[in-house]
């Protein structure tokens, strides 16, 4: 954003009159957007906090889109012989619901939290590659647009989010929905791959002095494991998508059985990515509650090394279990047995975490804030989902469960009860830090309870529906097949559909909470929860440069240990200072020269170029050429641009009054 010069005299650095910095000279053809205000400030930013917020907004938007898609599904299934959606529309709906939720909501929302908080938690001023960070964001936005363009251009993808071959080929999926899906996902995949490299290097290289790996907060650790999962699993789905793309666009026969192709090739490639992907989805939520639970139990996390190592173990073993998604595909008994055992094994490190969280709460003085409620909710609901997952690992029983609603129940318990609850816990926990205001706790309570009730009402019955024999991905069920008795398919489907609308209301309550807080929310104290980790050693919201002085770390839970000292007599921790005073002290000792990377056009331009190149696969060589040219040009522009705009691009507006070039923080 800017180069911040501090006058030598002791001046309280508060956000009074922002010095507007305007470029006075041009560098080459275009000036760097260093002075950007308003929407341009956001469009060209490389600040991890702004990028994090934009990820969050985009993700929330797609959460609602995906949610609406789900409600339409539940409306269709509420009654027998539903005629609300045609079979074709239904196929598009469940495909896009899942694709949207996984790739356009869950991953970007985790990216939002990771982008905003990881640098803060490790005491850094930004990520390792700020422009690449912006590129990831804009690629994600482009990918989301391409994926959803299909709705308006002949119908969305309709082969299921796992897009099994040969159903996904041109013969059985003739509309161009799958084409947009393939290209859109490739683009989003590149975004995540770049992001993963960025965050790994950030964690390795940009930790504050004294922060060894085993002093990092658990959220940071979980995000690190996720990035390793992404960096090594994304190329595999890239291959799958390329093969599918070449089949659909250029007539290759990779999944054409008549040419000798084996449909299982797709399944292997997809699930070698797809299984690590589900750990990509859940580990950030695990990381969030590993911060929330200790804070609101007023106890340190129980067994920190176990939580860290089990996270790494889950990541590692997660690469070895993918074929448990293929138990009914005809792999043969040897393969099935091997993967069955591996899948049972992976339940162990997950169980370790659950016990560590429970033991964190045991004996603590629990503060039932909304964030804490969601965290406890995760522990309970994820356990339910995990248990049904264990039943899936038993191959004989999964042969009955496969392709029924029992599976749908399992993954919604772990994804909604697990991941979504974790994210909501994070919202309520970190909202004061990001926006300087507290979300309303009463509305939060309504949000939580409606979500618990709605979620269990929607997905609980699906266990029963599955065991009663309702298959997945069937656009209709009939009276004749509903079964005997009162508690048959008809009953449970109605319950589930009602539950889904209660869920929708709970999300609405959250949005109302956000809106009300935005308009007139309570100003947040600097450290409202008496938290433990470094991101709280900042103003709310943090300044552009995060920390006035890079902290030197001596402890795990460094922030906590600066506020509390051990009383050797009673062996309890007693407070010696509070968060606000600590931040004031940092301000008084601020670094004299802080240098931040400047905004840039190139990430956005390059993202547009890459997307155009992708669309060129669908729309022909001229479009590809334009895309390729844009990519080439913007790559050169990027490489030739130093990370900080030269001094001549800034104008010092206030000569001599001592305050120069300080840029107003967010808010």
């Amino acid at each position, binding site marked *: 954003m800017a180069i911040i010069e501090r006058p030598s005299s002791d001046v309280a650095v508060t956000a009074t009159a922002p010095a507007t910095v305007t470029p006075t000279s041009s560098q080459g053809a275009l000036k760097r957007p260093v002075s950007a205000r308003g929407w341009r400030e956001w469009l060209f930013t490389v600040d991890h906090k702004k990028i994090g917020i934009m990820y969050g907004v985009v993700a929330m938007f797609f959460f609602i889109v995906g949610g609406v898609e789900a409600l339409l599904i539940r409306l269709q299934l509420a009654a027998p012989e539903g005629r609300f959606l045609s079979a074709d529309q239904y196929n598009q709906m469940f495909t896009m619901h899942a694709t949207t939720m996984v790739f356009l909501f869950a991953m970007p929302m985790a990216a939002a939290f990771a982008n905003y908080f990881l640098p803060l938690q490790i005491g850094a001023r930004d990520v390792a590659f700020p422009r690449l960070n912006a590129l990831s964001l804009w690629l994600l936005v482009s990918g989301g647009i391409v994926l959803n363009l299909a709705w308006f251009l002949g119908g969305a993808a309709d082969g299921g989010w796992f897009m099994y071959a040969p159903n996904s080929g041109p013969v059985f999926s003739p509309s161009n929905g799958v084409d947009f899906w393939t290209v859109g996902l490739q683009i989003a995949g590149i975004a995540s791959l770049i992001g993963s490299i960025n965050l790994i290097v950030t964690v*390795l290289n940009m930790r504050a002095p004294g922060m060894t790996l085993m002093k990092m907060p658990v959220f940071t650790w979980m995000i690190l494991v996720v990035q*390793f999962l992404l*960096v*090594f699993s994304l190329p*595999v789905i890239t291959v799958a998508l390329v093969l599918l793309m070449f089949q659909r666009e250029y007539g290759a026969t990779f999944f054409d059985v008549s040419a000798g192709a*084996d449909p*299982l090739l797709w399944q*292997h*490639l997809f699930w*070698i990515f797809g299984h690590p992907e589900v750990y990509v989805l859940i580990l950030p939520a695990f990381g969030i509650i590993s911060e929330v639970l200790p804070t609101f139990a007023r106890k340190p996390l129980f067994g920190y090394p176990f939580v860290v190592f089990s996270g790494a173990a889950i990541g590692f073993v997660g*690469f*070895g279990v*993918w*074929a448990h998604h293929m138990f009914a595909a005809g*792999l*043969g008994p040897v*393969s099935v047995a091997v993967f069955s055992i591996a899948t049972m094994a992976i339940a162990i490190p997950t169980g370790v975490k659950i016990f560590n969280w429970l033991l964190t709460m045991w004996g603590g003085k629990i503060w039932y804030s909304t964030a804490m409620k969601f965290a406890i909710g995760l522990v309970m609901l994820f356990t339910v989902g995990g248990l049904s997952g264990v039943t899936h690992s038993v191959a004989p029983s999964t042969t009955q469960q496969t392709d029924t609603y029992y599976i749908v129940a399992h993954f919604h318990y772990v994804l909604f009860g697990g991941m979504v609850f974790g994210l909501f816990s994070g919202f309520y926990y970190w909202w004061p830090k990001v926006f300087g205001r507290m979300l309303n706790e009463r509305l939060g309570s309504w949000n939580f309870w409606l979500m618990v009730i709605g979620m269990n009402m929607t997905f609980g019955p699906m266990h029963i529906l599955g065991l009663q024999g309702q298959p997945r991905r069937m656009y209709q069920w009939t009276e004749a097949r509903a079964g005997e008795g009162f508690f048959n398919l008809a009953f449970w489907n109605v319950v589930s559909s009602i539950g889904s609308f209660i869920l929708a209301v709970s999300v609405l309550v959250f949005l109302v909470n956000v809106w009300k807080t935005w308009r007139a929310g309570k100003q947040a104290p600097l450290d409202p929860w008496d938290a433990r980790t470094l991101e709280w050693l900042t103003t709310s919201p943090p300044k552009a440069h995060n920390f006035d002085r890079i902290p030197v770390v001596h402890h795990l839970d460094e922030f906590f240990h600066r506020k509390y000292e051990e009383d050797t007599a009673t062996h309890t921790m007693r407070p010696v200072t509070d968060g606000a005073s600590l931040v004031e002290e940092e301000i008084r000792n601020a670094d004299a020269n802080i240098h931040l990377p400047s905004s840039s056009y190139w990430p956005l331009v390059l993202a547009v170029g890459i997307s155009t190149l992708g669309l060129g696969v669908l729309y022909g060589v001229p479009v590809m050429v334009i895309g390729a040219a844009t990519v080439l040009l913007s790559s050169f522009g990027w490489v030739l641009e130093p990370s900080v705009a030269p001094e001549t691009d800034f104008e010092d507006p206030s000569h001599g009054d001592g305050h120069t070039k300080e840029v107003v923080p967010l808010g």
Partner: protein
Amino acid sequence: MDTATAETQGEAHDEKHEHMSDAGYIRIALILAAITALEVSTYYIDFGPFFMPSLMIMMVAKFVMVVSYFMHLKFDNKVFSFLFYTGLALALFVYIVALATFKFFLQ
């Protein structure tokens, strides 16, 4: 921290001073060329049961030599090796297992 100290500290972490002279690299290149010639000779000479094992060994030898010497991984910080070889190991694992389920190694 003045820049001079920073640079020496950084270099101490980063890499030892160049072990290989240009002549050393040329020697490695000649060895690689010789192995390549041996590989190509399998096209002309019947290696019998040694065909597969020797080709695989030669392929791996060339691979490791380029990575260790030309890419300098042998002399650099172990973190780089960890990052690269983890990717390689994972690739070998998942793809060999996947091919195995296709009974690829039984033909």
